[in-house]
């Protein structure tokens, strides 16, 4: 039974604390989310997100402080600029647009956090497993050894 694996990059000062707030208030949100705490959403670089998809994530959620509330003043400005462009690029390359989402959650917004994670998980669940990473070294396999079928690629560990 397919359970989407969602990676969430949560900034320390706002969205990670927002997740805590949701926990304290006993709000339910799907366990599919694996939270990775970063100092600021501005730390989330395009190569990091692409690596995440390369390693088998079904969806990537980037949550930062609201604009104007960043602990580092303008860190989230970088994210606000970068992510839409990265989104356009990866969509152009064949990723379903619903699999990557950027949103803003402040430290007190536990409900908002839970709602976003719920929405996102359901959207990704409906799309099925992510086909971004594909098995096989090449399309035109020059010799038999090129296919990697012997080792199963288990997504992100058991």
């Amino acid at each position, binding site marked *: 039974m397919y359970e989407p694996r969602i990676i969430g990059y949560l900034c320390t000062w706002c969205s990670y604390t927002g997740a805590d707030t949701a926990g304290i208030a006993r709000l339910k949100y799907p366990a599919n989310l694996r939270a990775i705490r970063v100092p600021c959403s501005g730390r989330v670089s395009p*190569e990091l997100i692409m690596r995440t998809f390369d390693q088998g994530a079904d969806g990537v959620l980037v949550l930062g402080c609201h604009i104007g509330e960043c602990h580092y003043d303008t860190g989230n400005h970088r994210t606000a*600029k970068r992510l839409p*462009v990265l989104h356009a690029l990866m969509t*152009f*390359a064949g*990723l379903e647009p619903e699999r990557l989402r950027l949103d803003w959650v402040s430290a007190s917004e536990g409900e908002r956090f839970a709602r976003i994670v719920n929405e996102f998980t359901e959207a990704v669940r409906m799309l099925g497993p992510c086909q971004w990473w*594909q098995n096989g070294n090449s399309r035109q396999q020059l010799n038999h050894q090129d296919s990697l079928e012997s080792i199963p690629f288990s997504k992100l560990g058991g």
Partner: protein
Amino acid sequence: MSYTLEIQTKARELLTSKQVECVIGYEVGLRGRTRPAFVYDAQDVERLVWNQACTHNLTTYLNDKLNPQGPVKNKTKEHTPGRVAVVVKPCDSRAINVLLAENHFPRELLHVIGVVCDGILEKVGQSGNLRSVRQLPISDLSQVQSRCQRCEGHMPVTYDTLIGECPSHQELSLGKANQADLIHIQAMTPAERAEYWFSQFDRCIRCYACRQVCPMCNCPTCLYERDDSLWVGIRIGLNEKRTFHLGRAFHLAGRCIGCDECERVCPMNIPVSLLNRMLAKEVEALFGHRAGLAPIPPPFVTVLSGS
């Protein structure tokens, strides 16, 4: 006076008066192929030419010449920078603005010989992949490279010496070619798009020629070539190749000036410029920024305006 003579005359003047120590231009090699030339001596200026095979973007050599102490991805040798002159087409001249905006070298060290260009000929392939370029006058649009067909500015955006005359609008019938190939891909479903790109990157051999020829790709160690495989492994495999190309395209968003040399040098005819063009449109739509028209930083370096 023909462009060739004008360039030679200017080069002679610059070198004799010691205003520059090197002129970077084009020459024709023994096989009749045009290639980059580095002239240090006024006696050698007759090597310099201008023709419709001058496809190379010579600004890619500027970092090495003008900023050798700084991060250089492609060192010739250790030396202290002197002034250089470089022959640029309108597209190449935009690269200078991007390099200036990123503080690679001071403008005073550069003498820009800008050429008014009406298009560079497409590489002619023969079986065996020979890259010769026909030395013929342009009689119809289709012989000119696609990037030239899309060119919107036939005047260099920055120059110290101008070769040729500012074109009037009637003379230049090279209009905007449509970006039909972009639209075609954007109309596909995600699965079709993914398949398209996999089939293109399948041929890629990670020779990195696209990266090496680009003036804007100047990281001393490319993120995708790290010894610790942090962002991508060294496997010359589908997933890795796609990550490299997408990542490189992203790093060029708002900086790529559309010379399409990356596509020209690719030995496997991979349509690399599609990614760069798509992002250029995106960046223009989101931030109103077009690379290279002025020496201002690209959008990702600055904060949101009004904040």
